[in-house]
């Protein structure tokens, strides 16, 4: 029970002091051509099977995203933050961890959750307004989606440090927005991870905006990856709309972390094509021109061009992918077509492990109200 021989927190790795490349690393250019040389930062294009898999996941994830946006417009969800346009970043990164690794997502990252195997109904419970979270954290090794910005990054650091203390070779990956990097918690997470050399991979999705605020109002750094230098950890500045590059860089970071090499900060440069959430009005703060520019840099089209040029995208494959995407969309529509009616008495069930007398009193009071028909109108589904 006393101090045994497990690895010491005294870390021997020298601080990394390399500046990330000023231009985002890229393995495929926007026309879908494979790149070589300096642009790649020494990373190599994943094999064809992997690329096909990434392509498939992106297509399916986008179909899901588009479907949920449509359902939201129909009023089926309280809110939905779309990741349309960010699939390269989301799916490149999430595909680099395994099912034993942990993922700490934000509200933005439903497409990563779908890719990770969560069910639409589980993911959307919170956005439909049933309960704050709808999936099993432990089963999926995926934390509840975080809303308070950057807070989840610390949870990822803590969890991965605990795993390291337990000698479990797992990695925690967390996503952050460009805006979230301004929060104190982002800094504390980077610093704790670097000092403790935890197996944590930080993926900053720089989608250029924090709601309405452009990156230039968020940082004066040349790249968000530059922040890594201040923590002595490796930082990578990556084209987030190049799923191949995102995958290659995050995969290397995950493997380094797993091998005891400590944390990595990866910035994926991307763009949020949709509004911040359905209740946002992006015309107030950005030009249609800019959106068009980014639409022409679509991550799915880019990989598709490459795969087509390589002859890797047969009609059979295409239609299998389309079918899978449509099946998911149908499932999503279906699960959202029935309004869930969460039980109001459950409000009291999870606050504490051991029931508190005062809460049980309040529960009884609500029970009596319900029995007396206080909310009868609502319970009849009349809303």
């Amino acid at each position, binding site marked *: 029970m006393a101090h045994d021989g497990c690895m010491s927190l005294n870390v021997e790795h020298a601080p990394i002091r390399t500046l990330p490349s000023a231009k985002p690393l890229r393995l495929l250019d926007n026309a879908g051509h494979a790149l070589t040389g300096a642009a790649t930062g020494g990373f190599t294009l994943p094999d064809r099977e992997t690329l096909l898999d990434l392509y498939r996941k992106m297509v399916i994830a986008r179909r899901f995203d588009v479907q949920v946006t449509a359902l939201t417009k129909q009023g089926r969800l*309280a*809110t939905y933050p779309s990741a349309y346009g960010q699939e390269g970043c989301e799916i490149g990164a999430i595909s680099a961890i395994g099912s034993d690794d942990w993922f700490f997502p934000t*509200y933005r990252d439903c497409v990563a959750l779908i890719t990770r195997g969560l069910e639409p109904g589980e993911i959307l419970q*919170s*956005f*439909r*307004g*049933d*309960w*704050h*979270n709808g999936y099993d954290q432990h089963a999926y090794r995926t934390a509840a989606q975080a*809303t*308070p*910005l950057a807070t989840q990054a610390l949870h990822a650091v803590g969890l991965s440090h605990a795993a390291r203390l337990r000698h479990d070779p797992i990695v925690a990956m967390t996503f952050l927005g460009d*805006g*979230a990097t*301004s*929060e*104190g*918690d982002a800094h504390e997470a980077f610093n704790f991870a670097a000092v403790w050399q935890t197996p944590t991979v930080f993926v900053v999705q720089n989608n250029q905006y*924090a*709601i*309405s*605020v452009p990156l230039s*109002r*968020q*940082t004066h750094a040349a790249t968000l990856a530059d922040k890594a230098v201040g923590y002595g950890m490796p930082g990578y500045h990556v084209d987030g709309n190049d799923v191949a590059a995102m995958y290659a860089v995050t995969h290397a970071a995950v493997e380094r972390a797993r091998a005891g090499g400590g944390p990595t900060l990866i910035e994926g440069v991307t763009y949020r094509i949709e509004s911040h959430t359905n*209740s946002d*009005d992006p015309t*107030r*703060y950005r030009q249609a021109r800019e959106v068009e520019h980014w639409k022409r840099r679509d991550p799915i089209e880019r990989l598709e061009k490459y795969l087509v040029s390589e002859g890797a995208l047969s009609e059979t494959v295409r239609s299998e992918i389309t079918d899978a995407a449509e099946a998911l969309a149908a499932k999503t529509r279906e699960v959202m077509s029935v309004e*869930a*009616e*969460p039980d*109001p008495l459950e*409000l*009291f069930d999870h*606050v504490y492990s051991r029931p*508190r007398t*005062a*809460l049980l009193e*309040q529960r009884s009071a*609500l029970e009596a*109200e319900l029995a007396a028909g*206080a*909310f009868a109108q*609502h319970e009849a589904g009349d809303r």
Partner: protein
Amino acid sequence: MNADTTTAPPAAAEAPAPTQLTMAGALNAALRDAMAADDRVIVYGEDVGPLGGVFRVTDGLQAQFGDDRIWDSPLAESGIVGTAIGMAMYGMRPVVEMQFDAFSYPAFEQMVSHVAKMRNRTRGRVTLPMVVRIPCAGAIGGVEHHSDSSEAYWTSTPGLTVVMPSNPADAYSMLREAIDSDDPVVFMEPKSRYWSKAPLALPVTTAPMDRAEVVREGTDVTLIAYGPTVRTALEAADAAVDEGLSIEVVDLRSLSPFDDETVGASVRKTSRAAVIHEAAQFGGYGAEVAARVTERNFHHLAAPVLRIAGFDIPFPSPKLEEYHLPTADRVLAALDTWEWDA
């Protein structure tokens, strides 16, 4: 423009005709007028610039006053409040916005250890004329972390002034007064009331910010409410008429300081009181109200001061919030628990 205006009575030009204004509109007008009146007034926060704030309270202000008077800061609440302290030290009158109650929590240390304490620490040499606007409370179908009621954190902190308007006229008048105040003010805006309307001719001056107001007279019970629950109290008072119960409603307006005088006078008249708020009951602001009113009026009270509040749980998801929030029915049911013959 109407060519007939010369035929209008001259008074009309001096006292503009009231127009329907939302609370959000009234707050917007208050900011606009304060900025026009005093160039030390500056506004910043998250999304307050081109977007005009997620609730549009700062709509159009950047276009009018420019980027040096109102701008979007980096996304960091401690940074927003901390820099506002420095600006206030230099004589500016910053008005900063926290996007939602729960997102003011990263600023907690700056609020409690500096905003609240600066004047006292420096023996009155450094005052902080700043306003921290906090859209607060629920009933907007907000997802997690968007419906907290944070007032008790601020009212428990000596050195802070905490106010919450319940209607457009007060929203305008109190925000102007808060900006003019030499002391820091936590200005809480009930989100569910942002789109409530009232006919208003601006500028309007209502009662001083530190005074409670009797917004409906009654003889049997005093309902003490603030912000979003003033409407609930008024609804309950309306409904109670049928039951032959005459309810007086006090809108606190100021949570810290507490207007012992106005509330005490009402309670001594009715001899029964209840306080209504959205926040969880345990440790909520209602505890101070109940404790204080009882302390000072015990021998006038025929029954314990009741608290009608949210349950002692984290704020629920959109589909469940209606069960959590106090309603007029729940208020009336609570009053029924009193021993009325006692």
